């Protein structure tokens, strides 16, 4: 490898950046330097600006990008298996830079390919002439699990199968771009690309501006407007149909839904009626005419597709047949992303489009064909063998693709036998060597292989290509495509413009956005999660207050304090914050249990976890700050006590947790627009607080006050200061109960909670033009009037139990009126005989 061309003086100051680059450079194509070791023209300015900053400053800027991703960027995680196992997918800060001329070529190839795939889908789900004419063996279609038979003969509403399309490309040693794979089912990556762009453009704004990088926002705006234009009625909202928070790209769904202004829905939120598809919202059914589908098609309708799906919408296929709903992409579009397709595309392009493929795909042979099979077995060592459609290779190889020479002998023999028996299940592919792009490594650059994902969207009769992309970079120098299956880091892709680029953002600007004060319909499921989230948070606060009250009483070593402490402990026990077996141990241990026990429903770890889970399914409705508070709470209660379990450590932790809970409440109060979703949070919180206060009064408000019980009640209800200001005397029963239960101005009193609940219920959308009170309103109003007219002296335990019972009925009535619960049945037919 030649050394840096020292004859180019403008490169002089970039030498230190490149000191480690050449020795690490494998003998294939590199994006940044050519074979002679010269920096390619379109990288120079970037490198010079980077060099001008100096390594320390570069580190500082890149760290800012990481911070941005971490802060907003809980979105930016890959979920594996369970909701708990989030894995950050770090940003490689150096963008891949693509010059304008090369981009034009890539773009033309991508658009041609999108058109080709659409034509193939239209044929295979229609007349299937390609099969009859012998261009496609029937088995390549019939063997593909994404060939969805209920959709055969169904013209996709809206006119096309594909509306979003992603392509993975790599560059071979000869400098040509090759398509490695197509994503047509429910392509992911656009949201990740957007996050990377925001993070990087904010971290190095000067470089980003100076380089004239093409903006990606116009692409998203075009996509958004195209889909909105498919709504035939004004009141329809575009919905993003997600499989839910367990999906690995759920954060992208929530992020894109928020960014594009689409309604994020799960299958359960939708219902099919004879005249269309509707979202169940707290204001009744709202029509949905366009679904951006991030749910795999086979799960979309348990009636006609996989009957085992619990994520789908029964009757959706019928609604599509009736032309009621446009899906992006259409059900069944995943058919053309199978590897087996790649072997037929080069010959199909001239037949269907009248021109050769502008962008070749990796050479692929379907092994159902006897000649291809013989050739592949002959050249097994140098070829990659992969499944033709989906799933893993047989013979315990446990991968989707493998290079022939990497197989051990038994696996090799087993694979050969299987190919000879059922060649239809396999493809052979030319082993691809990828090009490399620079990665920042402690002050200098090193080359690493990568795959570039490019995104397209149908707009009108044509296609728009997102000028940018999502780059997956390997952490090792092995440039064989087969060893880069997931990618270790991601990077942004910058497409340079030869013209000045206009500033453009989808973030609201005054002149572009029509004023609206509504945030659109609130799905019933989202409302339920908001309500339960608030109840969990409030319950956590109650448990924390009880725990603090308990710790406060461990320092006084007298009988009175011990009696109050005993009451607190029994209340903690009744609420399942501490195990029954622990009720007689030292109060400090009881307090620690309430903070730490994992298996108890009322203890902090469970409450914090439940709150997080409820919040995770409504991520699109939360500010990153509010989510951050929940994460913090969870982190705090799950942290070990480093210094041992002292009373002061417990006290400190309780106070820390209470501060986080208060900050969450503050964020909700101050930063959330006071629309319907906010009201469900408030109703949940008020109801839980009303219940807790009733119980506090029952435990501490009676039997006189020989032992400071009333003081404890005032402490739990956070009302000591008001009481002292009002009465300047020791706690007495009736005044305390009046303040804690009946005072309409005390934000902790029961009456106050009821008054707020009444107001929130009245402000919720009405179903139909029914002017009567809704069932929850009837309960709330009756209860509130009863409480408002009550005297402190008439309140006894029985009265309070009545109030608690009414509050629980109120909760059920709210659920019945606004939250759908749809229970599903397996409907298993008894065994045949």
């Amino acid at each position, binding site marked *: 490898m030649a050394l840096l061309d020292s004859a180019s003086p403008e490169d002089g100051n970039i030498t230190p950046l490149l000191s480690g680059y050449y020795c690490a450079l494998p003998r294939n194509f590199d994006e940044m330097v050519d074979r002679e070791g010269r920096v390619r023209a379109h990288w120079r300015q970037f490198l010079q600006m980077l060099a001008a900053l100096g390594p320390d400053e570069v580190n500082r800027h890149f760290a800012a990008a990481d911070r941005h991703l971490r802060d907003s960027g809980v979105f930016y995680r890959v979920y594996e298996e369970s909701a708990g196992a989030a894995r950050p997918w770090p940003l490689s800060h150096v963008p891949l830079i693509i010059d304008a001329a090369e981009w034009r070529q890539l773009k033309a190839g991508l658009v041609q390919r999108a058109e080709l795939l659409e034509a193939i889908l239209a044929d*295979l789900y229609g007349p*299937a002439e390609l*099969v*009859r*004419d*012998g261009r496609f*063996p*029937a*088995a390549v*279609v*019939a*063997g593909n699990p994404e060939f969805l*038979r*209920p959709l*055969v003969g169904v013209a996709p509403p809206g006119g096309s199968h594909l509306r979003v399309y992603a392509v993975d490309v790599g560059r071979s040693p000869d400098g040509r771009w090759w398509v490695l794979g197509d994503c047509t089912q429910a392509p992911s990556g656009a949201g990740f690309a957007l996050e990377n762009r925001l993070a990087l453009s904010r971290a190095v704004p000067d470089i980003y501006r100076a380089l004239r990088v093409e903006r990606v926002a116009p692409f998203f705006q075009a996509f958004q407007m195209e889909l909105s234009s498919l709504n035939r009625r004004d009141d329809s909202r575009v919905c993003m149909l997600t499989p839910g928070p367990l999906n690995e790209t759920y954060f992208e769904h929530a992020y894109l839904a928020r960014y594009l202004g689409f309604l994020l829905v799960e299958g359960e939120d939708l219902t*099919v009626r*004879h005249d269309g598809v509707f979202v169940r919202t707290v204001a009744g059914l709202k029509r949905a005419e366009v679904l951006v589908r991030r749910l795999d098609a086979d799960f979309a309708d*348990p*009636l*006609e597709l*996989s*009957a085992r799906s619990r994520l789908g919408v*029964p*009757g959706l296929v*019928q609604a599509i047949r009736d032309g009621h709903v446009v899906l992006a992409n259409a059900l069944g579009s995943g058919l053309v992303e199978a590897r087996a397709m790649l072997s037929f595309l080069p010959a199909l392009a001239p037949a269907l489009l009248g021109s050769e493929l502008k962008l070749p795909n990796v050479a692929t042979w379907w092994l*159902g*064909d*006897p000649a291809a099979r013989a050739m592949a077995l002959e050249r097994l060592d140098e070829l990659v063998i992969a499944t033709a459609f989906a799933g893993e290779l*047989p013979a315990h190889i446990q991968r989707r693709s493998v290079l022939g020479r990497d197989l051990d002998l038994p696996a090799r023999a087993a694979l050969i036998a299987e190919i000879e*028996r*059922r*060649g*239809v*299940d396999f493809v052979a592919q030319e082993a691809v060597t990828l090009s490399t792009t620079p990665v920042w490594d402690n002050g200098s650059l090193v080359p690493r292989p990568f795959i570039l994902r490019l995104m397209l969207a149908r707009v009108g009769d044509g296609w728009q290509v997102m000028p940018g992309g999502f780059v997956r970079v390997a952490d090792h120098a092995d440039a064989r495509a087969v060893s880069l299956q997931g990618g270790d880091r991601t990077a942004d892709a910058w497409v340079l413009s030869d013209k000045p680029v206009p500033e453009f953002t989808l973030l609201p600007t005054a002149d572009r956005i029509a004023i609206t004060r509504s945030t659109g319909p609130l799905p019933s499921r989202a409302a339920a999660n908001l309500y339960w989230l608030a109840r969990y948070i409030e319950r956590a606060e109650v448990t924390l207050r009880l725990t603090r009250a308990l710790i406060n009483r461990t320092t006084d070593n007298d009988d009175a304090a011990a009696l109050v402490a005993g009451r607190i402990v029994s209340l903690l026990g009744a609420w399942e914050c501490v195990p029954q077996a622990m009720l007689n141990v030292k109060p400090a241990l009881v307090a620690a249990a309430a903070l730490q026990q994992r298996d108890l429903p009322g203890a902090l770890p469970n409450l914090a976890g439940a709150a997080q889970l409820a919040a995770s399914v409504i991520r699109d409705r939360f500010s990153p700050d509010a989510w951050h508070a929940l994460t913090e709470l969870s982190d705090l209660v799950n942290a070990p006590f480093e210094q041992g379990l002292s009373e002061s450590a417990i006290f400190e932790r309780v106070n820390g947790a209470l501060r986080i809970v208060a900050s969450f409440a503050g964020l909700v109060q101050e930063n959330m627009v006071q629309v319907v979703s906010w009201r469900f949070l408030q109703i949940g919180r008020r109801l839980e607080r009303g219940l807790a206060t009733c119980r506090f009064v029952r435990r501490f408000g009676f039997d006189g006050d020989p032992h400071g019980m009333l003081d404890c009640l005032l402490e739990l209800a956070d009302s000591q200061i008001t009481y002292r200001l009002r009465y300047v005397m020791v706690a007495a029963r009736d005044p305390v109960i009046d303040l804690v239960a009946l005072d309409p101005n005390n934000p902790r009193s029961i009456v106050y909670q009821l008054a707020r609940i009444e107001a929130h219920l009245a402000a919720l959308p009405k179903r139909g033009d029914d002017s009567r009170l809704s069932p929850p309103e009837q309960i709330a109003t009756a209860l509130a009037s009863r409480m408002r007219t009550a005297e402190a002296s008439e309140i006894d335990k029985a009265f309070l139990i009545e109030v608690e019972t009414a509050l629980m009925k109120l909760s059920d009535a709210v659920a019945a009126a606004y939250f759908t619960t*749809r*229970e*599903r*049945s397996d*409907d*298993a*037919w*008894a*065994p*045949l*005989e």
Partner: protein
Amino acid sequence: MIYDVRQATIYHYASPVAHAHHVLRLTPIDRTGQRVHAAVLDIDPLPVERREGLDFFGNRITWVVLEEPHDTLTVRVAARIAVERAPTVAATPPWEEVRAAAFASADLAPNSPAHFLFSSRQVSLDPEIRDYASSSFAPGRAVLDGAVDLMNRIKAEFTYEVGATTASTTPPMSFALRRGVCQDFSHVMISGMRALGLPAAYVSGYLRTGHLPGAAQLEGADAMHAWVQVWCGDEAGWVGLDPTNGILAGDDHLVLAIGRDYADVAPLDGVIVASGGQRLEVSVQVVPVS
């Protein structure tokens, strides 16, 4: 031979069902060697929506929506069906040729062998079942001979036992148990055939029995039955084999629906809004009228 078929299917729910969507595959249609003179499907309670249609494989399906709260759902089928099957071709090609022809098929029509070559929802391709099936298919053996041999081995070596398996038992499970009912026997045979690259389909229907004096009662007579169709090349086409009884499907076998496995032909799929469980009662009568 002409038959009257009556089937009653009754679901008893533990609590009332407020809303239900169902897909029914319970109406027989005309097929090669089979004519349906009349077929009526009654559903109680009365659906608010009811549509009829054909699925991809040409089976008759009925979509219904029920909105009247109900604690039982009754589906009654009454049909008059005439069956007269052509005798099976005696000589079929070697199984390797049939496999090659299926791989190369340029036919995507519903009865193309290409649809029945691959794993499907309820039939995985399992190496143990493949090895078991493989000993019926010596190199060069005629495909139907091999299939009949496999069918007879399943009949001989598996125990018919109601309750040993359920509707969702997988082929490897019933294969390991060496027991089950007609659905399991059919799934095992299909899995074995496909693993060797041979097209095999799943048939649901009815079986007439008890008409042969002194003959043993065939299994599957008073319930729905299931068997297998094997593709024997372009000329011989599809041939029915009943591994539960070890016989070729003849004029006693009435076809209701054909698919890749049970999931394609399940008599009733549905989604209901209800809590609690359900109990199912099925009765079938097949009476010859001539």
